[in-house]
């Protein structure tokens, strides 16, 4: 195993508890993007460029965007809460 591969593994190994333990969803989404990027790097050094590319587009573009939009939405609904409660 090359040093690059070990480095990528360590990066992922350190990154995943960080993503889990960051409890603030917005910061977590950013950490998740970073974890995805380091996974992509890992796949790249493990001779899996197709997987690396897919992981990169999903975790750097696809999911973070949905996460962000979800969080925007959640925040806005929470702000409107009292009105919602009345309606229920």
């Amino acid at each position: 195993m090359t040093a690059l591969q070990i480095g990528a593994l360590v990066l992922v190994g350190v990154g995943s508890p960080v993503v889990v333990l960051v409890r603030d969803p917005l910061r977590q989404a950013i950490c998740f993007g970073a974890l995805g990027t380091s996974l992509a790097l890992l796949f790249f050094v493990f001779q899996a460029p197709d997987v690396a590319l897919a992981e990169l587009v999903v975790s750097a573009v696809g999911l973070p965007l949905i996460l962000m939009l979800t969080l925007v939405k959640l925040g806005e609904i929470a702000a409107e809460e009292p009105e919602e409660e009345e309606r229920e």
Partner: protein
Amino acid sequence: MTLLPYLVAVWVLCWGLYGIVTSRHLVHLVVCLGVAQAATYLLLVGVGYRNGAAAPIFAGLAPGTPVVDPVVQALALVDIVVEATVSALLLALAVQAQKRFGTVDPDELHSLRG
């Protein structure tokens, strides 16, 4: 040393599950599910790896060059798509949960018991 990638996969899986179990926020939970699923990509790609072999792309590679297993990579690709779609669906549910329950904390979602 030859175990390291597998150990990292098990480690990542356990952290992902821990995150799901202890989560106080559905969005956080979905991300943790993604972390747990990442362990399976690692395991898949790791299982098909071969020391010193090239990527299974023969553009500019002499026929017969040893390459890593293309099959597991195809499986990992499917895995990644599945993870992205499940996450999207769960996030949509989280948005609705906020709208209906006024919370996205699993500890406070209380409509089904017994």
